[in-house]
């Protein structure tokens, strides 16, 4: 089945992700897919969850931290500025503390904590994570295209989501036990109402946020996850391993896309040895890909003569991706 057919047959799959090792073409394919869908009249948002995002490069437009930016009719792109979001968020927390306790200054100990938390390495990721939730739950777009981070990170996200989920269940249990003590104390003091535990409510909210994101990642109906690979030995092996792991986390794998295949029409008689060798090598690995992933390989995208930047190039990739033949 071609990529185009898959999209046409599964209109419910509104969350599109491209995964794979670094530098294989995830961002490129995200942009191309967004372009193709937009051209067909769907309202599309492609957004980057990578702190080192490259959507600005590919669209040749600075969109960093500017929210969804319209690239062309129906096509919107967004790069999250994690630092800015963290700063705003810190202020929000400070304000909340001031309001809740009627203070005019955040106590030193608390302020130290706020700053220390922001400096933690996981802070950036979790801030982006939360923004993604904001983006996808809004439901304004027909398609959401995740420009994912390299494999390792994506896996980390997925595994953390389930770890977090368990933790939240545990500490929610703790809060519930505490609420139980409150209730008994209220009975003994003959108080009618117990003050509800705000933290319990917040935990439920957090759980909901984390689940919203990870459940999309693992939703077979709404989500399509494509692996990008290139015909090279190490990449094939790594992709195989990663696919196994993703399956373990219930990510609905929808197929594999081979990138950077040297166009066969270049195979003339008098080409340099260098090129011939490479083409032969690619042939060997394409065969191996065929053996390993079989019919799940959806399409081969040729190696272009230049970087993929700007809409015309994106269009060419989109055509190769969707209209091309295997």
């Amino acid at each position, binding site marked *: 089945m071609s990529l185009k057919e898959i999209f046409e047959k599964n209109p419910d799959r509104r969350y599109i992700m491209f995964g794979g090792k670094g530098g294989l073409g995830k961002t490129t394919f995200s942009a191309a897919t967004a372009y193709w869908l937009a051209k067909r009249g769907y309202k599309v948002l492609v957004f980057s969850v990578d702190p080192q995002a490259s959507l600005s490069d590919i669209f040749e437009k600075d969109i960093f931290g500017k929210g969804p930016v319209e690239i062309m009719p129906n096509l919107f792109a967004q790069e999250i500025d994690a630092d800015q979001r963290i700063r705003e968020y810190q202020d929000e927390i400070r304000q909340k503390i001031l309001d809740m306790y009627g203070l005019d200054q955040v106590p030193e100990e608390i302020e130290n904590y706020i700053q220390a938390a922001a400096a933690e390495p996981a802070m950036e990721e979790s801030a982006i994570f939360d923004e993604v939730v904001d983006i996808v739950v809004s439901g304004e777009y027909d398609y959401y295209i995740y420009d994912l981070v390299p494999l390792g990170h994506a896996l980390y996200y997925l595994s953390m989501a389930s770890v977090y989920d368990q933790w939240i269940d545990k500490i929610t249990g703790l809060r519930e036990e505490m609420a139980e003590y409150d209730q*008994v104390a209220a009975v*003994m003091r*003959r108080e009618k109402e117990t003050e509800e535990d705000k933290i319990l409510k917040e935990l439920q909210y957090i759980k909901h946020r984390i689940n919203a994101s990870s459940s999309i990642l693992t939703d077979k109906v709404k989500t399509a996850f494509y692996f990008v690979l290139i015909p090279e030995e190490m990449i094939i092996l790594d992709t195989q391993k990663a696919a196994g792991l993703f399956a373990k986390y219930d990510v609905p794998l929808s197929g594999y896309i081979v990138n950077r295949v040297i166009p066969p029409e270049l195979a003339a008689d008098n080409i340099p040895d260098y090129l011939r060798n490479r083409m032969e090598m690619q042939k060997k690995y394409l065969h191996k890909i065929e053996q390993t992933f079989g019919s799940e390989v959806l399409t081969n995208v040729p190696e272009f003569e230049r970087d993929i930047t700007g809409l015309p190039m994106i269009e060419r990739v989109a055509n190769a991706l969707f209209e091309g033949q295997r």
Partner: protein
Amino acid sequence: MNAVVTLLIGLVAIAVGYGVYAKSINKNVMNPDEKKATPAKMYMDGVDFTPANRNVLFGYQFKSIAALGPITGPIVAVQWGWLPALLWIIFGTFFIGWVQDFSTIMMGVREEGQSLGALSYRFVSPRARTILLTFIYFYLLLIMGAFGKIVGYDLMTNPAVPLGVLLVIGVGLLAGQMTYKWKMDIILTSAITVILAFVGIWLGTLPGVKNLFLAINGGETSPVVFGSVTQAQFIWSLVTLVICYFGAILPIWRWAQPINYVAFWIVFLGIAAGTVGLLVWRPSIPADFPAFTNWNGNLCAASDCSGLEKTPLALGALWPLLFVTIACGAISGWHSLVSSSGTARQLESEADALYVGGGAMFLEMFLAVLSLLTAVVGVGATTGFAGYVGMIAAGKNAGVFAVGLSEMMSRIGVPTSFGLPYGSVFLTLMALTIMYLVVRFMRVASAEFMGDKVPLFKNATFGSIVALLLSAVLIYTGFWARIWVLFGGANQLMAALTLLLITLWLMSKGKSYMWTLIPFVFMYITTIGALLLTAYNTIHQVMTTPGLAIDLVVGNWLAGLIAIYLVISALILGWDSLQAFQRQRAASVEAKAKV
């Protein structure tokens, strides 16, 4: 003299003691500052530091300090005659008891709610803290011995009592289920469970039940199992230990607290009924009941003992022994622990300290006087002095209270057939509710001190069983009266240490301190005297009495050794306190020189 006059004397003592002496000390020495934030407010953490209303704290303090101590001590002390006991209760409370309780609260409040251990470390010496901790451990162990013997030897051997006790425990468990699990209204729970508890006590008095328990005891005169321990004593002491075991290892809300809650109402209603009964009755102290028997508290020199199966043990010299025989009810060191780590951390305002600490102590004095009257008029007016002597000779010290209380309650229509077992169940519960908390406490203490060296002690079951085995040794051996005196001794050493601490603290603050120094000196010397005398009495008795039963030999040696240990650590403490005094003096001279 009429019993009501005795009560009135007590009331006058309260009026003068609380209304004049305590108030003036409070105003002139402590100068409480209502506006100052107490540790309860400053460090409010929901764990230890939480402010509570003064009436609530008064109730809390009172129930924490008033237990079996103020009830049993006076009854035992009547062996010297009722007058010395009455005078010590009144004057002890007046000059020492409230002073200690109140000042400990104030010291705690002003020293950021620090525990007594920490304060001893600071003001006396590092090892003073360790010594205090060993006093506490022995005090607890001796409670187990003293109360355990009361319950297992005196109260539960009465076949009309055990079922009532067991049923009330069952009702207590039900109360726990109703409040903590079913979350039922507390007033409804109280009403249902208190009624059920009454029914339970009544069921225990039915003839069939009595006969059943009589059979368990092995007949009216229970056969001896070993030494001088009878089958009934053996069985019921064991049951007591088992009950304590559950109280120690089950969650506090599952066992100890709800049972204590139901027990509170039984005790509260009993005391209320007894007091009203006494006022209705208004008996005179019987003419044959001596105000003073003799210096050695030898009942057989004051009354004819020829008809008695066992002769009661002469207590020994009035000074120093009376002053440790009645501890709670006059002055008790344990109160200071409650005052510092419990009450001081909950006090809402410094101005509440006198009402809470002083007030509760004066109320306890009143309870002690009432208890004294159960022996002197409750028993005395019905069976005469000989009746009292007979009960003491039979080892029924606590039984005296049950008999006396039921006599008083009978004046408002409670039949003695119910009142007597009621009084016994009341006392048994009072002892039990304390005992399992003690085992709990010993378990925690051993886990804390030994847990690092012997990890097994961290196991709750193991820690509890060790505590119970130690208790069993005390319960099954020795003379009760000796254990009681030792218990009082350990308690009064804590009192002395506390008074010393308060004195040093007052010195460090440049306040007048004679009013605590003199009580300290008195308590220190008296208690060491009492312990030395007990060591001598117990060991002397083993050496000179031929054919003493094996349990009594073991018990006496044990008691003697504990007494010697307590004396030695008290002497070390004395040495350290002398140095602390000199340090404090030098410091205050220096401070003056600077000014």
